[in-house]
């Protein structure tokens, strides 16, 4: 297979396969969670479920003072790499073109040098997080093989994207193809690993907040 | 087609589109320095550098026109000019249709192609000899 054939494959059939697994996986998992339902709460409502749920979705993103002091590193690095991922994935002009091709509309991009810098920052944050995970005894103890695998699959598109943009090490078509392939890998494992939290986070936070809201307590 | 229907690309000579104009001129300066220090000459192929429309003209404009302008008639026209900076020459080769086929900046005291070539001098010597022989023969026959 020539490198252009490889590139044509990841842009064509490879992307099809990845998007089918991604979309089907996410929808089926959501359907399973939602359709399982919850036991009706027979107690009298002391507050609003909706209000509590929505508040918690937002408020859980910002740690209270004690939590922050206890795990400042996790909070800061977490914010950096999640923000970095958002910016590099959704605000880079070529990526927006890809979204526009699928969903029919686009949005303004950030200047390329900003994306470039954010990529480096995000990669560094992810590396720091791995070191922290390994060095911290408690974290190391609760880490599974899946955690390391997911970490790898998350950082790969960043590294391959950086190499493809700067055209380092290999020929340009191969670099681009590897970058797209790494993203397809991410899409394929996404619904079946902890990566799914990107979607389910709103759901679980809403449940938590709604339960407290119903009881009329702060979540 | 009238000229108004042609899309005009708004690229001015003044716009610096690639980063190659300044480095190239700096390279010429370094080459001059080398010529002064070591007597070594340098040739730069203008066709090996990616230049935006108008950038070659920009480089030529900066270098300007100096004291020497020579025309060669060798397999089509060639033009050898010394720029306003002594020691910096522009050598342009044209084909029979007056299209530029190659262009070089030469930093040297005298571009090689202007010098009479040893092989040509030798050929000239024997040719001149033959001509003189012929003349002598003709004179003998005439008398």
């Amino acid at each position: 297979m020539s490198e252009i054939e490889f590139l044509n494959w990841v842009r064509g059939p490879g992307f099809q396969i990845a998007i089918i697994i991604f979309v089907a996986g996410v929808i089926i998992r959501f359907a399973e969670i939602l359709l399982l339902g919850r036991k009706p709460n027979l107690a009298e409502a002391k507050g609003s479920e909706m209000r509590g749920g929505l508040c918690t979705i937002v408020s859980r993103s910002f740690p209270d003072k004690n939590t922050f002091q206890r795990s400042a590193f996790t909070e800061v690095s977490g914010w950096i790499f999640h923000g970095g991922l958002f910016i590099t994935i959704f605000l880079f002009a070529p990526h927006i073109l890809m979204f526009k091709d699928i969903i029919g509309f686009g949005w303004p991009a950030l200047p390329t040098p900003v994306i470039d810098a954010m990529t480096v920052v995000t990669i560094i944050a992810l590396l720091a997080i791995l070191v922290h995970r390994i060095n911290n005894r408690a974290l190391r103890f609760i880490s599974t093989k899946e955690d390391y695998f997911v970490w790898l699959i998350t950082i790969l598109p960043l590294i391959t994207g950086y190499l493809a943009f700067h055209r380092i090490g290999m020929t340009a078509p191969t670099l681009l193809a590897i970058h797209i392939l790494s993203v397809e890998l991410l899409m394929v494992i996404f619904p079946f690993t902890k990566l799914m939290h990107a979607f389910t986070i709103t759901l679980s936070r809403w449940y938590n907040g709604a339960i407290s809201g119903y009881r009329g307590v702060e979540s | 087609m009238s000229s108004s229907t042609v899309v005009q690309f708004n690229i001015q000579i003044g716009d610096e589109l690639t980063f190659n104009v300044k480095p190239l001129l700096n390279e010429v300066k370094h080459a001059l320095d080398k010529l002064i220090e070591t007597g070594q000459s340098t040739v730069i192929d203008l066709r090996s550098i990616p230049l935006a429309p108008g950038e070659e003209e920009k480089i030529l404009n900066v270098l300007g026109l100096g004291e020497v302008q020579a025309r060669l008639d060798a397999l089509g026209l060639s033009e050898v000019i010394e720029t306003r900076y002594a020691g910096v020459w522009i050598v342009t080769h044209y084909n029979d249709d007056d299209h530029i086929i190659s262009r070089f900046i030469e930093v040297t005291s005298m571009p090689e192609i202007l010098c009479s070539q040893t092989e040509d001098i030798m050929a000239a010597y024997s040719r001149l000899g033959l001509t003189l022989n012929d003349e002598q023969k003709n004179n003998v026959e005439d008398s």
Partner: protein
Amino acid sequence: MINDSNRDKTLGETLREQGISRRSFLKFCATTASMMALSPAMIPKIAHALENARRPSVIWLSFQECTGCTESLTRAHTTTIESLIFDFISLDYHHTLQAASGHAAEQARETAMEENYGKYLLIVDGSIPMDNPGYSTIAGISNYDMLMDTAKGAAAIVAVGTCAAYGGIPHAKPNPTGAVSVGDLIKDKPIINVPGCPPIPVVITGTLMQFLTFGSLPELDHIGRPKAFYGKSIHDRCYRRPFYDKGLFAETFDDEGAKKGWCLYKLGCKGPTTYNACATTKWNDGTSFPIEAGHPCLGCSEPDFWDGGSFYKALSMPTENITRTVIYTAAGAAAAGVALGAMNRHKKNQAVATHNRTSIDDLKK
């Protein structure tokens, strides 16, 4: 062309006999160096090599092609220099350019092969049909047979154009003729690929000159192309590159960005993945090249450039219609999800129903 008696003479001798001055020869060498994308420091070496080079026999075979490559070569803009190159080689067979036809033409090829066995240069343009040999024949000989027969005695093969180098347009899906490249069939001879649709004229002549001047293969990249011309991508040498780096793109062919000469990435430019010399060598007497004319690069010097989806889809876009895939998948997955959900619910209810409660009395037993 020079007559056959000159074949044993060196180029230097031939030129001097023709009254071409050393100065003209120097000009020729300087232009050749520029053409071969070599450093001007190489000019004296080229002069020396050419002085002592001998005139080789060249056989040119055309298979499934459009003659665009020959058109490109014969319109190479260095007419004077070009005629010298043609003087320098003995083009013994080229069925588009030669005067002879029919048996005489084939005779010329066979004679050239016999007389120069093991020494002649074989140039091929066009791909070879492997499905039905009847798709393309010359004098009743299938392309495959002619190629294999002629390649046997060749010193080296130059595959000119993307068709000969990688299959090109005949090879594009669904490849009705079963077209393959020269390199797919011949493994035991040095092959130089000079792809492009068509290749840039001076890249063709530059590659030939490099082989003829130094008698050796130029340095090739991983898919057989001379590095001197195909070493850098269009993107890396594009004068519009600074706009790409800044993120300034033309969105359509006639917007402000297009008029200001911004990057054509969003209009489907394949410059970032295409290796060729267009951006520096340019076309039509060095006038311009596609991107300079405001059109994105099609990637014609790369294998399978015809199968990369629309020419106007950006490199970061998927080539297929993903919107449709997403809608169908979502519909199917929603149905499957509901079914699975119902099953899970049933399981849950059953578990509740069959659950045995343990009472204090049970424990007392």
